[in-house]
């Protein structure tokens, strides 16, 4: 009797479940079907055309690659490490072995499996000669235990590994395709396991992608884990800000990345356009060569930090599309430290006087018969030149004579190898603390990367220590010391954090973006 009742309950439960699931299916299927029917072609306006699509042969990255390639680990909008191809991971107590468990059934667009062996091949190939080999320099070996288990054996504990496997240069390519196409890989095709398949690339003009209908392994933090809604995505490369603005307003483009600050008000006034402003991962700063007078004196460098009215630059040059910068790291990146420098001409004058600089009859600072006259380098980009002009007048207010020298972007980077720079305006875009090592390690002076030419044994020691720290907390602690010391040394004057400004047509739903990318997977036309 009792077993009959149990059976009846089970039957009832199963029946109810079936009814619910069919209701859910009914509710979901038309929704997806409608979205797919409405979402035929998406046009994304990008500023810069990529040189190649192979992550093995360039460190340039581009938005289309984020749709073509999956990574081992992804990062959500709050910069938390989340699943991508790997659904989970763990690290051994000594920090030397990382074990990643991959999602089963992930396939590349060429039909080959994207399994542990393929991921291991990508990591070893990049480490042994890829353009971004530094990403995996701590990896001694990558072992595919089985198709879904990957072990990374490290030479030393490297708590920043998750950042490296999740950044834009770590996309997983099909080993079969890389070997098949050889030198042409990244030039004529690129094969990954992402929601979109590479279709066409007209160099310097556009890249066309087609939906991957078999995609079912989207990261869990996205609202869509299945195939993307848009059938075709066209990335158009448009350097002209005005053209991008007009295309979006006329509906000939759906998403604009890197919106010019001057276009924001027009977009906000347009009911057909939505503007998304989030904090970015870029910093514009003025660098000072610590080996060249007068900036070989730390007091003079500190004075420069007090001279700059950052709030005025934020408002007048960038129309408020970003934040005034006081740290060397961007706002999302730890460790942030308290900066002593604000706009304070009195403090600047005191420091300059302490350093022996006094004003002559013309109001120009002088020391030992030498005028305080400097050359300020800048790239010939509109906002950089505007900043240089503001800085020139701010320096003039305390008696510094600055001459602006402009360079085109092709030659600017190369000029730093000469070591002739005195003061220069520069931008970097990176969202990890190790950028400080990149710009301040003395071993990078010759290559022109350490542009302030700071050769400091304490800093070099701290950089080595930071790399060997067993945990992220310890690493952050060391970088905090580095950051505080660098602020004191003032070889950079942080100026502005440009915001990440994007705009998209108001008829798009599912807008989901991180610092790096607008995730097309979630986007659909309403």
């Amino acid at each position, binding site marked *: 009797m009792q077993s009959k009742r149990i059976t009846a309950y089970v039957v009832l439960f199963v029946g109810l479940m079936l009814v619910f699931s069919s209701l859910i299916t009914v509710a979901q299927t038309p929704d997806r079907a409608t979205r797919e029917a409405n979402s035929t072609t998406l046009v994304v306006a990008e500023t810069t055309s990529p040189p190649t699509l192979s992550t093995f042969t360039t460190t340039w990255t581009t938005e289309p690659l984020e749709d073509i390639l999956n990574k081992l680990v992804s990062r959500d909008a709050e910069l938390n490490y989340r699943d991508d191809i790997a659904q989970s991971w763990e690290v051994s107590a000594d920090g030397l072995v990382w074990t990643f468990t991959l999602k089963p059934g992930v396939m590349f667009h060429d039909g080959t499996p994207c399994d542990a062996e393929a991921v291991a091949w990508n990591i070893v190939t990049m480490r042994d000669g890829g353009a971004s080999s530094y990403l995996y320099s701590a990896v001694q070996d990558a072992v595919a235990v089985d198709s879904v288990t990957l072990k990374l054996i490290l030479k030393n504990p490297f708590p920043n590994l998750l950042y490296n496997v999740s950044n834009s240069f770590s996309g997983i390519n099909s080993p079969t395709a890389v070997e098949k196409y050889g030198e042409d890989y*990244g030039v004529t095709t690129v094969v990954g396991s992402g929601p979109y398949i590479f279709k066409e690339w007209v160099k310097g003009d556009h890249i066309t992608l087609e939906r991957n209908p078999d995609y079912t392994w989207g990261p869990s933090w996205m609202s869509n884990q299945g195939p993307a809604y848009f059938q075709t995505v066209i990335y158009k490369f*448009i350097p002209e800000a005005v053209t991008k603005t007009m295309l979006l307003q*006329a509906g000939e483009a759906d998403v604009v990345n890197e919106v010019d600050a001057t276009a924001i008000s027009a977009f906000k006034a347009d009911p057909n356009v939505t503007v998304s402003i989030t904090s970015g991962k870029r910093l514009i700063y003025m660098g000072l060569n610590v080996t060249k007078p007068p900036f070989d004196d730390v007091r003079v460098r500190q004075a420069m930090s007090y001279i700059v009215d950052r709030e005025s630059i934020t408002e007048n040059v960038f129309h408020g599309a970003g934040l005034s910068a006081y740290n060397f790291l961007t706002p999302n990146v730890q460790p942030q430290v308290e900066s002593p420098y604000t706009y304070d001409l009195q403090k600047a004058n005191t420091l300059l006087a302490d350093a022996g600089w006094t004003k002559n009859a013309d109001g120009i600072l002088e020391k030992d018969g030498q005028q305080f006259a400097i050359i300020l380098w800048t790239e010939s980009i509109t906002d950089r030149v505007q900043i240089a002009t503001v800085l020139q007048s701010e320096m003039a207010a305390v008696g510094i004579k600055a001459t602006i020298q402009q360079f085109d972007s092709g030659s600017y980077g190369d000029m730093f190898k000469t070591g002739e720079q005195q003061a220069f305006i520069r931008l970097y875009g990176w969202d990890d603390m190790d950028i400080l090592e990149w710009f301040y390690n003395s071993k990078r002076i010759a290559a022109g990367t350490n542009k302030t030419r700071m050769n400091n044994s304490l800093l070099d020691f701290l950089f080595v220590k930071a790399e060997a720290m067993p945990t992220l907390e310890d690493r952050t602690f060391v970088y905090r010391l580095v950051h505080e010391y660098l602020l004191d040394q003032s070889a950079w004057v942080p100026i502005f954090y440009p915001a990440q400004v994007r705009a998209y047509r108001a008829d798009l739903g599912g807008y989901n973006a991180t610092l790096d990318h607008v995730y097309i997977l979630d986007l659909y036309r309403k």
Partner: protein
Amino acid sequence: MSIYQYILKRILMMLPVLLAVTIIVFSILHLVPGDPVRLALGEMASQQAYDRMRAELGLDKPLYIQYFSFLGRLFHLDLGKSVIYREDVTKLLGGKLLNTLELTGSALILSYFCAVPLGMLAAVKRNTVIDYLSMGLAIAGVSIPSFWLGFLLISLFSIQLHWFPIAGYGGIKYLVLPAVTLGFGGAAQVARMTRSSLLEVINQDYILTAKAKGLRYWTVITKHALRNALIPIVTLLGLRIGWLIGGAVVIEIVFLRPGVGRLLVSAIYMRDFPIVQGVTLILAVTVILGNLLADILYAVVNPKVHY
């Protein structure tokens, strides 16, 4: 000298000019600062990848060897491989050159078809409203920067009236606005030249004689006056070809047309030596051939001209 001998002579004379172009462009590119490999790989690329790419492209060799290997390849019509795109320059340029020629050709035809009649009308109706309007339009054409005119036309015909797409390529509707923008400045020059040249001719005695013989006025103008007046206009044609190709750079950027001008600008920024050398060489050939065409046309419009 027959016209064929003349053409052969001019083509042979092209060779030293082109050689000089290659030497000048090669020297300038290597004199200005900027490392194409570093720009292609990115600042953070490993030294190993950097060294490998320099060796692959032969950039680790002395300059004179690089130049002679470029010349050697040129004899086989091989312009080398793009540093940035890692693709054969000839292949990269193929479709883009056609796009540029389509744009410049349309602009040239448009400017001559509109400007010559306009200039004639202004000359014939000298000091009338028609003359003032025509020359006012011509002055506007000479003075308005082409990129600004481009944005104005987009604003009116694409955004307000929706007659043409804003930018892109793929058919006649994508060609109209860029061709008008590019041709407008040139049309203004041609119209002014036609007017002044025709005015000079129609005051001459043989025109008076033709009129006195009772010929119809427009027959005198088109058959007798215009033919002689065309000489300076044809000279302008040769010069216009070079100017149009230069102007196409801006128009291709504004209207997003994938042509050699747009490619050249990005290649200069990225110090992509093979592309810059290849495009410059092709443009030099086009300009020289354009001038040759103008020289040949002299004989066509005026039988008195001999070579």
